[in-house]
């Protein structure tokens, strides 16, 4: 199957920040976690894909087409969840159904209402009366109700308590059971991603540091723990970041580069992100 989403050298310049030649591919049937600190450019990238921002250079192929923004028909297949609902406070889920059912061709009201019920979203309450978590759940129900092939989630789980996040993760995992479905999930809450993602793309200060298979990533790297002397014995080219404290040194390094007997811990995705972002280069 052809990849769902392909970005090639996508660039966007702002005053004071540039998203610089970001390229990655999301294969069908996969979950890609898009990580990076706040302001790294994750939302910018997603907005560029959605056409909310106009790119300065590069290309985006969605479902194999580069001109998907002209007729917007491809958007029937996309479910989007941004951090705000984008819906008026005075609307109820019933109103939302009335509006969106006339915009999406494949909108299924039964699906929408049963998702609302499953997630505990009251049908007749106005959005302004709902809690943050419930609003988000409404957005997600709306994103899934028209049977999309691609879910674009921009910080869709941030600001929610762990219980709700867990419920949502279940929903996403259910979604991905269908091999033709894919998810691009940007988040700075890594526990969501660690477990379920197939690929991880790490954006740092506007540049893509890596976009890789998560399992390979975790197998490649480990966190070295020891003293300066031991650190110096490791090939610096294979060390990705060093953190020093009063009592020792920690470094993110390729497992294979660490000599036998070195004390090391498994690296988590969070470790990888922190070492890249905050670690010094040797």
């Amino acid at each position, binding site marked *: 199957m052809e990849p769902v989403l392909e970005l090639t050298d996508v660039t966007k310049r702002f005053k004071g920040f540039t998203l610089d030649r970001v390229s990655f591919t999301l294969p069908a049937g996969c979950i890609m976690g898009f990580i990076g600190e706040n302001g790294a450019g994750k939302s910018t990238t997603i907005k560029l894909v959605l056409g*909310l921002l106009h790119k300065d250079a590069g290309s985006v192929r969605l479902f194999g087409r580069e001109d998907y923004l002209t*007729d917007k*028909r491809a*958007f029937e297949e996309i479910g989007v969840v941004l951090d705000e609902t*984008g819906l008026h406070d005075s609307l109820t889920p019933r*109103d939302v159904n*009335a509006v969106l059912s*006339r915009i999406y061709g494949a909108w299924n009201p039964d699906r929408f209402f049963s998702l609302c019920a499953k997630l505990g979203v009251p049908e007749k309450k106005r959005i302004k009366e709902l809690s943050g978590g419930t609003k988000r759940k409404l957005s997600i129900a709306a994103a899934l109700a028209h049977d999309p092939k691609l879910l674009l989630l921009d910080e869709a789980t941030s600001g929610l308590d762990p219980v709700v996040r867990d419920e949502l993760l279940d929903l996403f995992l259910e979604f991905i059971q269908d091999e033709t479905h894919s998810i691009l999930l940007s988040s700075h809450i890594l526990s969501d991603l660690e477990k379920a993602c197939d690929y991880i793309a790490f954006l740092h200060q506007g540049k893509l540091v890596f976009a890789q298979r998560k399992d390979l990533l975790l197998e490649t790297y480990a966190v070295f723990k020891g003293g300066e002397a031991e650190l110096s014995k490791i090939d610096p080219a294979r060390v990705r970041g060093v953190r020093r404290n009063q009592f020792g040194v920690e470094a993110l390094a390729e497992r294979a580069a660490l000599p036998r007997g070195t004390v090391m811990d498994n690296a988590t995705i969070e470790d990888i992100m922190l070492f890249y972002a905050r670690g010094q280069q040797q």
Partner: protein
Amino acid sequence: MKGLLIKDLICLKGTIKIYIAMILVFMVLGLVIASGDGGEEGIWTVLGMISILAAILPFTSAILDEQAHWDKRALTLPLRRSTVVYSKYLLGGILILGAAVANLCIGLAAGTELRELLPGIWALVLFSLLMLSLIIPLLLRFGAEKGRFLMIFIAALLSGLFVTVGSRIGIPGISQASLMRMLLLGSLAVAAIVLISVSISLRVYEKKEF
């Protein structure tokens, strides 16, 4: 587009109710104060008010949209940017038409003659459309917050214009024929302005970033 209009109407329900209440109060006051004499002029104030309020509603809609960050969301739907722009004009058109019908009913109920009522309402419709054509591109370009002041300015300007022209029309001696001619010319002018406004709006909206 249907979905967009439904969304607009649902969201404006509250505002429309308030406006209707305002108008009723105004009408009652007007009838009480100017019973008999001056009732003729009074009716036009009411009708004018209705038209202006109807023309302002798209602006209210835009403010609500902005507060809800709806525009951003709308672009994640399978809707073209041009469709969004057209729907704003359509909403305005529907509201102006609604106001015209309401004006007709109220005018007739107040006993105004059709001969006087129709040209007047037609003129109101033209002015409302003119206002719409000026407001929408500005809203799209500057957003509802910043556009607010521009909007009030334009509304005031046009209201003033309407009153002056209106009083000119009211001058006895202007024949029906020249009145009709003025209205027809006016309609052509407004139609052209609307078209220009739409093309400007389309261009502005295509470029807009969220």
